[in-house]
């Protein structure tokens, strides 16, 4: 159980980069961008092909992100220049990317277990430091070494990485260009009248969004040890789940607060998923259904709980006033019969 929990946090930290990408398109640009399902794999595909051919994992990961940037810009281009509806632009790009990803990979699946990846590089350095052994001592002292993960380096590396990405994004969204990007999603008419080329901002914004998504894909294939062309199916929903759960639980007061919420949302989503998978009757193939249920829940529960509260309050008030009326005038009012 705890092993699965640590695994969920580890992958959650890597998927959080993707969630930040979805946050840019979905929240900042107000553009529901389905390119994500394709560009996530594109990042993984480009990175794995490059790593197999001997490129350094670091450069391969960056190249994966760059490929995502181009894909996102293309979606923006379809929308702004081709005047295609946002959803449709994303779907078109997603479908196109499926074939493109297969072309890049040359086959549906690329194993990376014997390749040098960012993780294998860090792992070998990490082993030489002996920090794992030190971190394990408190667990051993408590006699719960079974609850500890095998190693701590993924957690540490993932945390540092996501903090870095979050900080850069926070900074960018406060720059002159960054606030113009936010205004493009908030009030396009207004920012056009203030000399901003909204078409260009949408293209670059979607580019940045998909660059993060693809970089996350590149990291996930290295973490998993293989790249698969079907890896991105439903990824947009995972991203939305992270954004919505994060904002719902941790709030969205400021930009920095919201990006933090999205990151924590991505981790929380993986934890919820891991817990659900522990249930006996749940099969691995139920994963997507569970995802859909989690997102629906996150969307519906806030509205629903508000309605219930209102309904209860109304009922209480009606009861009191009916009684009052009865005492004052001896008159009894009931609901009219309607059928």
């Amino acid at each position, binding site marked *: 159980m705890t092993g699965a929990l640590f695994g969920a946090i580890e992958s959650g930290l890597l998927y959080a980069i993707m969630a930040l990408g979805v946050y840019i398109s979905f929240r900042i640009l107000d553009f529901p961008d389905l390119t994500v399902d394709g560009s996530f794999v594109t990042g993984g595909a480009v990175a794995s092909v490059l790593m197999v051919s001997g490129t350094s994992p670091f450069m391969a990961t960056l190249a994966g992100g760059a490929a995502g940037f181009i894909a996102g810009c293309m979606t923006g281009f379809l929308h702004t220049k081709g005047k295609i509806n946002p959803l449709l632009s994303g779907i078109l790009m997603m479908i196109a990317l499926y074939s493109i990803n297969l072309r890049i990979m040359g086959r549906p699946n690329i194993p990376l277990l014997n390749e040098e990846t960012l993780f294998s590089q860090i792992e070998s350095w990490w082993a030489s430091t002996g920090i794992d052994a030190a971190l394990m001592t408190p667990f051993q002292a408590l006699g719960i070494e079974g609850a500890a993960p095998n190693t701590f380096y993924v957690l540490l590396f993932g945390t540092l990485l996501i903090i870095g990405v979050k900080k850069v994004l926070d900074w*960018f969204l*406060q*720059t*002159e*260009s*960054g*606030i*113009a990007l*936010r*205004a493009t999603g*908030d*009030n396009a*008419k*207004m*920012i*056009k*009248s*203030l*000399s*901003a*080329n*909204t078409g260009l901002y949408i293209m670059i914004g979607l580019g940045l969004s998909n660059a993060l998504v693809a970089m996350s894909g590149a990291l996930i294939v290295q973490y998993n040890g293989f790249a698969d062309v079907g890896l991105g199916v439903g990824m947009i929903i995972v991203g939305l789940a992270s954004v919505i759960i994060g904002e719902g639980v941790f709030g969205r007061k400021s930009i920095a607060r919201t990006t933090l919420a999205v990151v924590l949302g991505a981790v929380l989503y993986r934890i919820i998923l891991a817990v659900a998978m522990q249930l006996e009757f749940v099969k691995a193939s139920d994963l997507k259904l569970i995802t859909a249920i989690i997102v629906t829940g996150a969307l519906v529960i806030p509205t629903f709980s508000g309605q219930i509260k209102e309904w209860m309050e109304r009922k209480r008030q009606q009861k009191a006033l009916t009684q009052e009326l009865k005492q004052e005038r001896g008159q009894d009012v009931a609901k009219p019969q309607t059928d």
Partner: protein
Amino acid sequence: MLNLKQIEKTFYKGTPDEKRAIDNVSLTLEEGDFVTVIGSNGAGKSTLLNLIAGVLFPDQGLMAVDDLNMTYLPEHKRSKWIGRVFQDPMAGTAPHMTIEENLALALGRTKKRGLGRGVSSSRKKEFKKLLQDMNVNLHDRLTTQVGLLSGGERQALSLLMATFTEPRILLLDEHTAALDPARAEHITSITRDVVNQHQLTTLMVTHDMEQALSLGNRLIMMDEGKIIFHADREEKKKLTVADLLEAFQKARGKSLADDKTLLQK
């Protein structure tokens, strides 16, 4: 300054709904002119403003600011020279961003946007002073989200955002029409102050005749896409609402009479 020459604009060309919105309009604004534009609904006032702002392109004609031909320059490029305030208080500001962020966005109208901090501490001070000078109660609410402001406050902010960077042309599109009378009066007086302060060349559309008379040094009246009445400087000072109604009747009445006789025969 601003030159419009033989501007034509027809909507839904070649369909039964064809409408000639602007019919051969020529207009020149000198440096510092403040022209108010009145006319009934559908007269073409807003279309004229949209053509100048670049939201629409004319079918024919020429539009120039100073010695620059802007007839077919995209909206986001020409807004470097043109400031605008819209009728809808929601339209001129970004609701989910703070007051200071909105003001920083307005600074980008004339300067290229880079990777410098949008709201730097020196800008913050400048914004605070701007709001204080404008005498709206917003200077201690710089970090408030604009969506939480009232319509009047948002319109005052829009006006500030459109003017403090001193555009060559200021376009006001019925910018007090959506406000209650007291707030409209307040925005009108702020408008008078900022236009005077920066000596802005201004074109203001309104359907409030009193407002059209009290503001500006020139007045034009539009009907069916044409300028049907023009009062300049000295002439405008003496103008009354009764004069305007009479001018309107005279221009409109004639054409109405013509139409009627045609229809009845």
